[in-house]
């Protein structure tokens, strides 16, 4: 019998579905010459590559955080193996990796790198007398005898260890890649390393490599530091803020992506149908999306979230753990947002279809008696797909931000779910305190900014490459590679 039980939450399943669809899309794009060409244009830009590295880090963390299990409770000897009990709490692989961080809870607030709590408390001295002072933290800087004297040196040492380890990890990742890439072109390892790092490749692998180095070092430094300190401090109930931010990544990413599962079929299907068939079908779809887009979305979401709450409570046999309940709320929220945000994609696709429908190749296909569905999927959709893609990547960052706003307003995810919005909502009270507690908000801000900024930069690169109207000035990189 296993020491754990695999748990697949609803969002895990949908996330896996999405990743599989993405993989299929990548394979498909790789086989199609014109798509490959455009994607190469995306990855020829340095900013896009740096953004890609950051997005991949977020993706990796989210994937680790989406593999859930329930550990077995300590088996009593003699108890029937078949009736082993599993914990009611659900953990993910990320939790496993961050066990130390998760378990190192303090009593209350503590500042980043602090050795003492943020507030004075009554301390019982060994001699039994009571003293009101800042108590030592149980985990933060607990290994230091005299924190004030030793702390700076210890932090420096740990950071240095982190830099070295990060560099080594990077080398371990980079060298095999350079070797394989060099072998394909018949270069030695040295030549291939030089070509990549100096940016002589057509795709901006140099940016990728340097960004990866930066990320490796950052992660390693964080890892070493968090071994002894609370790098971003702790929150009201003493949880490590770094741990909370890392757990929030998955929520943000899920929010940005899961709604596409609703947006894509609705937006594409209705958009194409409205544009291609015209007439009363067009009228109907237009009325539908005009109505939906004129309802204030916070109102709609609040109503739907409350309804979902009711459903969850009435079916406690299905949603039997805290995790599954908060997960159901997260998924339903994503789907609701999807159900109201397909309208913009639909509108754009309808307009494009109206234009493409009159193209001669569509007329020619009609001449051959090709059925409508086939014309739409074979002739219109591939030629309008850049709109879908651009719309999706541009929407991503807006959705991540929407999550924060909704949680702040109070109609967002379950309070048990870690998310940037919940953290920001909590920070409302912290900012009003004196002295101010700034680290929760700062951590959420930094991590969210990194995600949204890289998503936006990547979206820009995608739009520039795919939008036929975007006039690109000649890029030096391309000119250089053409000159060679």
């Amino acid at each position, binding site marked *: 019998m296993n020491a754990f039980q695999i748990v697949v939450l609803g969002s895990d399943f949908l996330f896996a579905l999405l990743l599989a669809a993405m993989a299929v899309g990548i394979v498909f794009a790789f086989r*199609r*010459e*014109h798509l490959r060409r455009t994607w190469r244009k995306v990855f020829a830009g340095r900013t896009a590559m740096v953004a890609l590295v950051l997005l991949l880090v977020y993706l990796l963390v989210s994937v680790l955080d989406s593999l859930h299990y329930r550990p077995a409770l300590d088996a009593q000897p003699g108890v029937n193996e078949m009736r082993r009990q599993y914990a009611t709490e659900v953990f993910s692989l990320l939790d496993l990796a961050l066990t130390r961080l998760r378990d190192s809870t303090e009593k209350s607030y503590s500042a980043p790198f602090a050795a003492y709590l943020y507030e004075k408390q009554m301390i019982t001295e060994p001699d039994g007398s009571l003293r009101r002072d800042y108590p030592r933290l149980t985990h933060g800087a607990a290994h230091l005898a005299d924190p004030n004297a030793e702390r700076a040196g210890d932090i420096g040492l740990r950071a240095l260890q982190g830099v070295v380890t990060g560099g080594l990890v990077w080398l371990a990742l980079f060298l095999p890649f350079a070797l394989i890439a060099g072998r394909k072109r018949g270069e030695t390892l040295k030549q291939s390393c030089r070509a990549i790092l100096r940016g002589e490749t057509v795709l901006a692998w140099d940016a990728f490599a340097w960004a990866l180095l930066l990320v490796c070092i950052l992660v390693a430094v964080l890892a070493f530091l968090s071994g002894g300190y609370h790098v971003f401090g702790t929150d009201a109930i003493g949880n490590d803020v770094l741990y909370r931010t890392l757990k929030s990544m998955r929520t943000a990413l899920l929010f940005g992506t899961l709604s596409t599962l609703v947006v894509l079929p609705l937006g594409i299907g209705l958009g194409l149908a409205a544009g291609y068939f015209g007439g009363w079908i067009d009228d109907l779809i237009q009325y539908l999306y005009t109505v939906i887009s004129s309802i204030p979305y916070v109102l709609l979401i609040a109503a739907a979230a409350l309804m979902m709450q009711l459903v969850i409570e009435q079916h406690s046999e299905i949603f039997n753990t805290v995790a599954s309940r908060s997960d159901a709320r997260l998924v339903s929220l994503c789907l609701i947002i999807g159900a109201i945000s397909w309208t913009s994609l639909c509108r754009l696709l309808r307009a494009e279809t109206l234009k493409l429908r009159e*193209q*001669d*190749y569509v*007329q*020619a*296909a*009609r*001449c*051959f*008696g*090709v*059925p409508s569905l*086939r014309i739409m999927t*074979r*002739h219109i959709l*591939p*030629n309008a797909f850049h709109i879908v893609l651009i719309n999706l990547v541009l929407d991503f960052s807006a959705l991540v931000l929407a999550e924060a706003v909704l949680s702040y307003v109070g109609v967002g995810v379950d309070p048990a779910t870690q998310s940037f919005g919940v953290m920001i909502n909590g920070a409302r009270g912290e900012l009003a305190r004196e002295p101010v507690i700034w680290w929760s908000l700062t951590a959420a801000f930094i991590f969210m900014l990194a995600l949204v900024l890289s998503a936006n930069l990547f979206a820009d690169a995608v739009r520039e490459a795919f939008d036929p109207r975007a*006039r*690109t*000035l*000649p*890029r030096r990189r*391309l*000119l250089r590679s*053409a*000159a060679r």
Partner: protein
Amino acid sequence: MNTLLAVRQLSMQIETEQGVVHALDDVSFDLHAGETFALLGESGCGKSMTAFSLMRLLPTGGRIASGRIELEGQDLCGLSEAQMRHIRGGALAMIFQEPGTSLNAVLTVGQQIGEVLALHRGLKGAAARGEAVALMRQVGIPDPERRLDEYPFQFSGGMKQRVMIAMALAGEPRLLIADEPTTALDVTIQAQVLDVMAELQRTRRMAMMLITHDLGIVARMAHRIGVMYAGQLIEEAPRERFFSAPAHPYSRKLFDALPEAQRRHGRLASIPGSVPPLTMRFEGCRFAERCEQAWLRCKAEVPAWHSPAPGQRVRCHLFDPAETRRATTSFADAEQHIETVQPAAQNGLLEVAGLKVHFPIRRGVFQRTVGHVKAVDGVDLRLDAGRTLALVGESGCGKTTAGKAILWLIEPTEGVVKLDGADLVALNGASLRAMRTRMQMVFQDPFGSLNPRLRVSEIIEEGMRSLGVGGSDAARRQEVAAIMAQVGLRSEMADRYPHEFSGGQRQRIAIARALAVKPQLIICDEPTSALDVSVQAQILNLLKSLQAELGLAYLFITHNIAVVEFLAHEVAVMYLGRIVERGPVEQVLQQPRHPYTQALLAAVPRANLAAEQGARAEPNHVKGDMPSPSKPPQGCHFHPRCPHAMDICRQTYPDSKIVDNARVVRCHWVSD
């Protein structure tokens, strides 16, 4: 003659993603006051770039690499942008190809002319208005006082181009650059605009640089001609000399590629290949790759200028005095005779009777139908197997709509379409799809008619798959290869995407796609109007030989009379949704009876000096614009523009009359 503009060794480069494009290389020519200099050449040869360089309106990434542009002794390349703004619209003015997009839609015509007057001549208020009215009158816009306050959308295409000319003239330019000024206009309107331009040039003693690809316009307008090829000027000659003895092999090929009545039974000369990309560097003559007379020297050495006759100079080794022996070897006219199959019986493959397509005009909240655009209003046609029927008319006359209605792409409002005796109106669903294997369409724009996301083999196979022609996959693939060979495409091209092909090759793919389902009738909707003359010749040759081989019938929709003369057996002339004259091509084109046909033929510029001089002697070009098909005039649709209009013409539409045995004309004026 005093030299107004001297261009010396002008080179222009554009930096693009594909590398540096040498758009112009060592271009030198002179322009004199009071003369029209025509720049002739195919697309991508640098004609427009020459004009833009003169005005210094360079595209993004473009720069003038070397050379001088001297306007009355002043070097324009040395001027600052501020000084150049003064020259533009002042001494130099330009009119563009597309009149619809060159005018600002939210300003009145008067404001736009006034802006130029204020900038370049300091005229304001009443003086400016008076001048604007005078200018509008000069370019032949009726009722200028009223029309000055109208917006561009209230003007027709030809009138907009006149406004553009008036704007260009407002700065009193000494040189007017006209970049394909009439390409977007219909022939009858083109003739009017060309007349206006010639007249203005004569009265104002202005120099004019006319950029065109049409030898007919050159013959009508130009005094001197410069031929451009791949960014270079390759020949320069006075008009008479150019039309009697063009020197450069490329110029000669341009003449030979023209479809004309005399060449009906042969193939047109075509130039193999296409214009080389200007990103490459050239070792020898730029035309050597496509030239039949090229020899080793042409590939190795850049030809210098030679002068075979006074005033004529040519950049070709053939005219090097050291190579006299070669120059004398004239072109052996390798005309091949194409056997045209005469149909055994007049079996009437396609019969169209009373075809009507009316589009409802809807207004208001409830989309009430308030009227109809009568795009096609009672068309009768008859086409036998293996023959070509040309449907001729100006844009908006309904010829394309008629073609699409015959194919059932647009549902006709009324009428009978019979293919091989079977009435298409009675068919539906499966039987209509079965009928689709028997007639197909080839579209006008080779760039819009192929799905850019599909491979060539997929494009050609699509119809076969959909209509169940060609059996198994393997058999179908073989069939595709055979068809590609038939239209002159190599079989390894099957896996490529359309963007890798030139316009001519794309049109071949489109023809292959239509042929794949083995049709008996192909409706060709202006298949060559987007192509250059030499490529047009290739496609026309292909269509003709396919007809001879497969016995295809073509319904050829076009506005190009020369193509009709070359390809068609019968011709039907359409005006405002109705056919006004129909008959054998020789009769209709030699002795047109309907006044509209006469006007249309008179308006077509001919690449033939004798014909053009005749036309110049008596410019009887038809006046006015084509009325809107939503409100056709009472009686005969043509009567407002007809020189022979009588009272009865204003009251009733004439019935069909059969004249000269085989011809049908609808006109009161024509007597039996």
